């Protein structure tokens, strides 16, 4: 009995069957009793009729009259088996048996002249109903009434009742099967869907077919699946970025020292005046490439090396303003206006202000790259009442970020810019720094709608001091 279906069927069927059983027993018993009472009543009426009609004839010993009355009554009812008239002295005056009087019957009639008895004969059950004639002073009339007909009727009705009960039971099975299927099939769908979801099919959703509880169940499952899928994606992204970050730092450390050595060596060789112009040209090419490598390594090291140094409370809007000043030059070149909207009062956050400047600068430079000439970039900060975060907004009027790109924008070395133009580290650095400050970055973008980055940094007063190195969240 593991399934709800089996339980439902067992208890409902059991209940239906028990009810039907009680119904059968009661109906059968009542019916039989009613028929029996009816027979007794009918026999009583007939017997009384015979007794009263034959009263005067008995008192005047008018045997021909008695015969007339008895024969008349015998034809009234087909269930009458016999009539026996006994006088006050117990002598049989008249009876309707052909060819003599049954030997066994005489003593029984003599003994039971007041109460009806049931006889078992070759012709089936016969009820003998005695009625005293003129209070017994003129004798007793005995009426034999066959019970065969009512017994047959009881059997027929019993069969009908059993058919009805079977029908009710089978109809009950059918209805219950349909009902329980309608309940259990959505449950089974949920079980299947949950299994597939658990096995990794995060796109698994249930069809919502109704507004009842099963529909609500499907809706609740789908809502849960949406939520789980989102969280799963975030966790995967966070883990991926963390792993890449660790790998990049390690690589950067290892490369940094040899790189320094190569750069020094290069400088020393360059200071030698005896170089021919061709060699000098190559040396400069080497130096340029080394510089490029150094920028990459520095960028990578930025995410780890200075993580714990220079942290303090600072006003976010001031750090942002410094970054805006730095970016303005690049913006002007593209005739892009940067509109600043900073709060009066300080949005004090905790962290290295220089690193936060880097975040804002990276976002602004990305915006300048993306935005068309002559457009506007809005930079604003807010830390209003009732919020735990200082929020920085950087909004451009560029073409927006396509969905396939959006997934990867915070990964290191991921870039859509021309080769050699970007390192692919800008947003990765932003992500690392913001995470380090226990904040998060959200991106709102759409085709031809521009892109808005929202950087959430916990206000200094709201911060949890112990969770310094926890990673933040990204939301697309």
């Amino acid at each position, binding site marked *: 009995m593991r399934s709800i279906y089996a339980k439902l069927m067992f208890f409902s069927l059991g209940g239906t069957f028990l009810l039907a059983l009680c119904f059968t027993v009661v109906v059968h018993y009542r019916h*039989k009793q009613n028929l*029996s009472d009816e027979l007794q009543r009918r026999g009583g009426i007939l017997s009384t009729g015979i007794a009263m009609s034959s009263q*005067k004839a008995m*008192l005047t010993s008018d045997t021909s009259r008695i015969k007339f009355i008895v024969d008349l009554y015998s034809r009234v009812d087909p269930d009458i088996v016999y009539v026996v008239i006994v006088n006050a002295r117990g002598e049989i005056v008249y*009876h309707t048996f052909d060819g003599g009087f049954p030997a*066994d019957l005489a003593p029984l009639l003599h003994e039971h002249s007041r109460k009806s008895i049931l006889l078992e004969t070759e012709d089936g059950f016969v009820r003998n109903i005695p009625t005293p004639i003129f209070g017994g002073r003129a004798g007793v009339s005995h009426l034999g009434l066959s019970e065969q007909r009512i017994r047959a009727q009881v059997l027929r009705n019993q069969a009908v009742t059993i058919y009805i009960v079977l029908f009710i039971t089978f109809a009950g099975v059918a209805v219950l099967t349909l009902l329980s299927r309608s309940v259990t099939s959505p449950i089974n769908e949920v079980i299947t869907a949950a299994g597939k979801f658990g096995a990794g099919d995060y796109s698994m959703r249930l069809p919502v077919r109704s507004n009842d509880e099963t529909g609500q169940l499907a809706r609740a499952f789908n809502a849960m699946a949406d939520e789980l899928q989102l969280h799963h994606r975030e966790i995967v992204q966070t883990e991926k970025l963390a792993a890449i970050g660790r790998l990049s730092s390690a690589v950067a450390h290892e490369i940094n020292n040899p790189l320094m050595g190569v750069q020094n060596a290069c400088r020393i060789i360059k200071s030698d005046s005896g170089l021919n112009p061709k060699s000098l040209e190559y040396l400069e090419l080497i130096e340029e490439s080394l510089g490029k490598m150094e920028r990459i390594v520095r960028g990578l090291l930025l995410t780890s090396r200075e993580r714990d140094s220079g942290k303090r409370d600072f006003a976010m809007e001031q750090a942002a303003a410094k970054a805006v000043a730095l970016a303005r030059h690049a913006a002007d070149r593209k005739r892009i206006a940067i509109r600043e909207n900073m709060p009066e009062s300080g949005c004090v956050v905790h962290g290295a202000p220089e690193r936060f400047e880097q975040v804002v600068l990276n976002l602004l430079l990305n915006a300048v790259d993306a935005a068309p000439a002559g457009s506007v970039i809005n930079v604003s900060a807010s830390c209003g009442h009732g919020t735990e975060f200082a929020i920085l907004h950087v909004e451009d009027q560029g073409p927006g970020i396509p969905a396939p790109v959006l997934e990867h924008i915070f990964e290191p070395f991921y870039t859509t810019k021309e080769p050699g133009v970007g390192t692919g580290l800008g947003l990765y650095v932003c992500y690392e720094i913001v995470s380090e400050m226990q904040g998060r970055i959200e991106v709102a973008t759409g085709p031809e709608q521009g892109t808005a980055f929202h950087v959430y940094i916990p206000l200094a007063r709201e911060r949890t001091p112990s969770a310094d190195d926890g990673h933040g969240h990204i939301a697309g």
Partner: protein
Amino acid sequence: MVVFAAAIASGCVQSEKTYQVSFNKKNLRKRILGPDRADQGKNLQFAISTMISPEETVLYYKKIFDYVAIKIDRGYDLVQKNTYSQTNDLFREGALDMAFISSGPYVDLMSTSGAELLAVPVVDGKVTYHSYIIVPEGSSARSIADLEGGSFAFVDPLSTTGRYYPISQVQALGRSPGEFFGRYLYSYSNTASIGLVRDGDVDGAAVNSLIFDFLAMNDPGLKSEVRIIGVSQPFGNPPIVVHASMPEELKERLREALFSMHKDPEGRRVLRNLNMQRFTGVDDSLYDSVRMLFESVDSYESNPGAGAE
């Protein structure tokens, strides 16, 4: 399981005891089994003619025979017949030993002999009774003459008070019953005639005054529903007769038992219940008035108009 339950249910009902009887084993060849003749030889055969209904006879008059039978220490069978003449016929055939009969049957029986007058009840100090002409309370009739064209109930063809007297009254009007009454019938008992009048089923009837007074005594409502509009001349009371062939000794014992009945507390109680004081012996001439009535009515019927006034 359903069948099982049904079986239980039928078991509940079938718990009544049954008796095994074979309808095939029969030991008597006759369909009509009359009383044992050998037994009849010992018992005396006492008859009561149906002045009242057979049922009422059993309830009231039979008590006299019960008392007498105990006094003479003999068993008896009560014989009742539907009409006076049936009883008379049995008497003539010698099938009866003693009979309590009405005055008309007595006169009829004596005319062919075979009977002997044994005793007569004394009621209200008299040994005579009357015929009452009765009508329903609501009837406007003041005498039998007013019943012309109506329906009428006679008691028995041999009844003095129930037939001969009212016919004599109709004959006195110069008519026969068939001409005078719109319809007439025989009820074969005084109580049946009284019932017919009381229920308004007939417009009038003639009945035995002893029976009417006796019934009125036990049922006070009767006189408010039935009105007497005519009373006849006196007739000798219905007598008890014995068969002439009865041994003298038995006759004597029976007479003694009846005559001394009022001296015995049990006998007195029986008599009082029947509104009788005692039994006495009378001369057959007491019934001459009945004989005259019969003669007059019968001669008028054989020669209508001869006696008309």
